[in-house]
């Protein structure tokens, strides 16, 4: 902890402390090292709350929200893939934070920001309690280590009937296996709805043909504008983008268009070249993400 940390008093509601990014970024980075070890956003929040080194009953929700935001920002800055649930939680926390900070005017809004903060705190306390109980359970003497059954039972013949060694697990597993088998017999290969390269190429050539050529009033057109609009199927949309890009590269290679990009992750632009433009330089393309 550095001296410039505003060390806010632990209370559920309080002013947002002045931002001290270096500190939070450090904490976020420490957490990010462990991202795979976390069981979702609540787990991260709990870890952050533990850093406050106060009883969870007194944990500062606002501080928690800020630290979580720093965690998310850092992850995005480092281009780490975060599961959607982390982002949903971030959005929810941002909403909670704004509610906590805004002067309360509309009393009818239910539940109040305070109730929401309390609920979050309860959730954290309950999860922490369960984690502690899991540890305590494991500390119990266990059968086979600490507590022992008779080591050499003489054995009893309890009844004339054979005793079957079958557990409920065996039945459930057997049924699961049967269903799985039945399913695989009728397994239909999933039909992926994708845009083919040929398709994209035809589409792009047609659209480019309709656009002015270089030398006339040629315009740079973004790659995404070649992708059909209003695609609902996410996979199809992604394939359309990929195919259009590849088609663009192919057309550039053929000297029919040129491509530019201003920097990493910037939009990709394309424009048509005149049919026999001597300046046609397919190598014009810069780094593309």
């Amino acid at each position, binding site marked *: 902890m550095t001296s410039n940390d505003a060390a806010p008093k632990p209370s559920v509601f309080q002013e947002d402390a002045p931002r001290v990014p270096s500190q939070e970024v450090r904490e976020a980075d420490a957490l990010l090292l462990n991202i795979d070890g976390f*069981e*979702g956003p609540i787990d991260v929040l709990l870890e952050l709350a533990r850093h406050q080194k106060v009883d969870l009953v007194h944990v500062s929700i606002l501080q928690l929200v800020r630290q979580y935001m720093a965690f998310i920002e850092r992850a995005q800055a480092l281009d780490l893939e975060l599961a959607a649930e982390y982002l949903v939680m971030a959005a929810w926390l941002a909403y909670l934070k704004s509610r906590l900070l805004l002067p309360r005017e509309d009393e009818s809004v239910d539940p109040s920001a305070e109730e929401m903060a309390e*609920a979050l705190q309860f959730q954290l306390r309950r999860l922490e309690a*369960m984690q502690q109980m899991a540890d305590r359970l494991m500390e119990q003497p*266990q059968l086979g280590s600490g507590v022992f059954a008779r080591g050499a039972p003489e054995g009893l013949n309890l009844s004339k009937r054979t005793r079957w060694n079958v557990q409920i697990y065996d039945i459930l597993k057997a049924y699961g296996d049967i269903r799985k088998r039945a399913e695989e017999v009728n397994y239909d290969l999933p039909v992926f709805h994708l845009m083919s390269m040929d398709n994209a190429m035809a589409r792009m050539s047609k659209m480019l043909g309709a656009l002015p050529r270089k030398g006339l009033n040629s315009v740079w057109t973004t790659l995404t504008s070649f992708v059909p609009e209003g695609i609902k199927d996410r996979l199809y949309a992604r394939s359309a983008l990929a195919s259009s890009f590849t088609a663009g590269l192919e057309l550039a290679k053929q000297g029919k268009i040129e491509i530019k990009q201003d920097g990493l992750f910037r939009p990709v632009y394309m424009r048509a070249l005149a049919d026999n433009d001597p300046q046609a330089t397919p190598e014009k393309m810069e780094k593309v993400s």
Partner: protein
Amino acid sequence: MSVNAEHVRILEALLFASEEPLSTQELHERMPEGADVGSCLMALKDDYKERGVHLVEMDGRWAFRTAPDLADVLSMEKEEKKKLSRAALETLAIIAYHQPVTRAEIENIRGVATNRGTLDVLIEAGWVKPGKRRETLGRPLTWITTANFLDQFALESLMDLPGLDELKASGLLDRRPAIEAIPGEGDLFAGQLPSEDVEQDETELEEL
């Protein structure tokens, strides 16, 4: 009124010889006609209560086990403790302390969806099993711990779970969702509903 000493001896021998805990029913079948199994069990349990071996009851089944307080001294042949994943551990604790509990409730408490391979590990170990269905919308299945679980963790009953009283006192054994980890559209805060409605969202999860 004294119990029949010979009957206690037979009971003792039966329980010593058996490889598995015996139910009162099974003991009845093996004991001489007219024996008062219940009284014999009580007498035997009392005989052993100060000894290095105890007579314990787990969910109506009886067996001799070494006294838990000797655990440290007895760590002789160390049997490999089953390594449970953190997720499985947490899930086991939640089922033990919150039972009967639905999967949706477990997910709510953990704030994360349950991976396959979490519950089935616990079922396979013989520690949890399906309980009754909850009589709410969707009739979700609940999960509970088994007699095996008690035996494994040297507990005579669920009342002996460590820390149970503190948890109860602190109100942390409430299974209801606190906040929805994944807020639904419009309703960012589905947690603080009156208790009748609390189960509602459960069914949504359960149907996934």
